[in-house]
């Protein structure tokens, strides 16, 4: 048992896998000697050396391409893109090359690689350094997408991602970097595609991801305490593969679903889940499906504006109450 922050769990998860498997390499801008601009890879360079932990030039396409070429020839690279907004600068490498290669070669080439990146807002970094882009990756066939909501999952899902034979986009959540948790001793290994029920409930189901999970749980507690409304909170943890079994089972039981999403509204990850529920659990639903998201805007920089844009505990509470009338 050791207490760790989300931030330190990132390095711990990578270290666990690099220790276990000598073919795991870490590349990225400032990830080595500097220990990462968020200090999320601190200690790895000292521990695993300059051969396995490499500082890259500002060449995002080369970073992903390098990992792809290494992954098809015997390594299991972890490539870091500093801010998730920057996946746009190498989107062709991710969405057209990495994602499609196994299919186009009908299985000849597999790409066991992880693209890890700092995702999400709330740090006053403005529109180009704060986006939640999990929905971009979710829309691309051939990519697995992971977005952990706590330090233990960071380690366990890092292990699952590194060990997965398919390319995984691993989005850690900037706003959660100081979140603390006790980490069990020994190896922590988890599984992709398994949702977790963060809080049990009977009146409605809230699906939340990464930064919105703590908010949804807090909102559920308030709904319970102050309004006697019992909300179940589900954290899918990975968007691809997506554990619809757990979500559908819950919604069929509660007959109501809400999503709480950090990504901008249009075609956020909740739109896929809502559409599936509207098709497959339609006759069990008692109320409209409601998505609580960031408005469909770029993120403003000023603190008062950014706070108003991101989904808040209050907004979740109010929206649920209004919907249940």
């Amino acid at each position, binding site marked *: 048992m050791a207490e760790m922050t989300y931030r330190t769990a990132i390095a711990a998860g990578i270290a666990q896998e690099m220790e276990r498997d000598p073919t795991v390499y870490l590349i990225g801008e*400032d990830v080595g000697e500097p220990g990462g601009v968020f200090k999320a890879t601190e200690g790895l360079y000292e521990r695993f050396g300059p051969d396995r932990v490499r500082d890259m*030039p500002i*060449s995002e396409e080369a970073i992903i391409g390098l990992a792809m070429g290494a992954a098809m020839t015997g390594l299991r690279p972890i490539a870091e893109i500093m801010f998730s907004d920057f996946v746009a600068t190498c989107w062709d490498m991710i969405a057209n090359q990495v994602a499609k290669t196994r299919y186009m070669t009908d299985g000849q080439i597999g790409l066991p690689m992880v693209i890890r990146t700092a995702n999400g807002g709330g740090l006053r970094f403005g529109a180009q350094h704060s986006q939640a882009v999990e929905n971009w990756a979710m829309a691309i066939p051939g990519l697995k997408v992971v977005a952990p909501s706590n330090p233990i999952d960071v380690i366990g899902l890092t292990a699952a991602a590194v060990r997965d034979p398919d390319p995984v986009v691993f989005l850690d959540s900037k706003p959660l970097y100081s979140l603390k948790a006790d980490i069990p001793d020994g190896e922590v290994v988890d599984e992709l595609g398994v949702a977790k029920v963060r809080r049990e409930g009977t009146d409605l189901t809230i699906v939340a991801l990464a930064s919105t999970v703590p908010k949804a749980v807090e909102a559920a507690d308030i709904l319970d305490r102050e309004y006697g409304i019992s909300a179940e909170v589900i954290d899918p943890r990975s968007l691809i593969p997506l554990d619809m079994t757990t979500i559908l089972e819950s919604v069929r039981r509660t007959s109501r679903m809400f999503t709480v999403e950090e990504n901008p509204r249009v075609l956020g990850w909740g739109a896929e889940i809502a559409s599936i529920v509207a098709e497959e659990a339609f006759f069990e639903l008692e109320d409209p499906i409601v998505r609580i998201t960031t408005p*469909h*805007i770029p993120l*403003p920089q000023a603190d*008062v*504006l950014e706070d108003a844009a991101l989904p808040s505990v209050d907004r979740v509470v109010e929206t649920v109450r209004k919907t249940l009338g």
Partner: protein
Amino acid sequence: MARTETATSEATGRSGLDESTRLALFRSIVEMRYFEERAHRLFLDNLVKGTSHLSLGQEAIAAGFGLAMRPDDYTFATYRGHAHTLARGVPMGPVLGELLGRKTGLLHGKGGSMHLTSVEHNMMGSYAIVGAHMPVAAGAAWSAQVRGTEQVAVCFVGDGTTNIGNFHESLNLAAVWKLPVVYVCENNLYMEYTPISKVTSVPNPAADRASAYGLESLIVDGNDPEAVYEMALERLARARAGEGPSLIEAKTYRKGGHSRADPAKYRPEEEVKEWLARDPVDNYRKRLLESGIDEATLVEIEKESLAKVDEADAEARAGPLPDVSSMETNVWSDGGSAWRR
């Protein structure tokens, strides 16, 4: 082969500039210096939200170009754009206000320190994704070319920017179309925390690549406001005359860290000492005194500059917070954010 021209005004002997120009350069770097120091202080006082990247130590580049540019020339800067914004005559109050996230900020709190823009001053924006503004500057230059306005676009980038694809695509296109654009690489020896030499295949990341675009290899002492000013005048004139783009590498150094919280521990003491001894403000002040300008004149400029910063500081602090409703304005040309009917 392209020749390498290294310009420092010491090298070229005593300055040929008239006193008013030299005092204007001095005033400009002093204002930038005081402004950035104040910005840093406000950050330490926890009034600057989010990140900010200061030009402390690099003021001579912004000042030299600012003075050499025509009012209708375009500036494109990086997230390290405070000095370049001031260099175009943008008032300090709204700039500081933007850093403080106020309604009275240059962008009313929408953009922040990394996106300073003032179209009214032809400061066409600060861009936070490395290299992205390089083709945008080429586009502004193209539009000036086809509109026949003889405007020039000046685009400032860092040394780390020389390794990203946009650098290559933009310089090739600018050269082929002979666009009136001047790219200025402020080589401060570091990306964020990684030395540029560790990740770059040539010693001069910009100058050694000019020939790949059929351009001259140009290096200037980025801590010497007069050398920068003279190089700027020459290159702007060439661009205006239709002789095509330039790529200039200005050697300089950050006084502090990459961004607000960075203590810059990764830089060797020797290197830091050596470069701090070349501080553009201190040295230029010394040179002006040596050249016979009397100290009272400089002190007066310093006083006025400090007063200007104090005033901007007070104005910024007094600015109200943005109305929350403004969060949903100006996504679209209709002023709003509605995407459905």
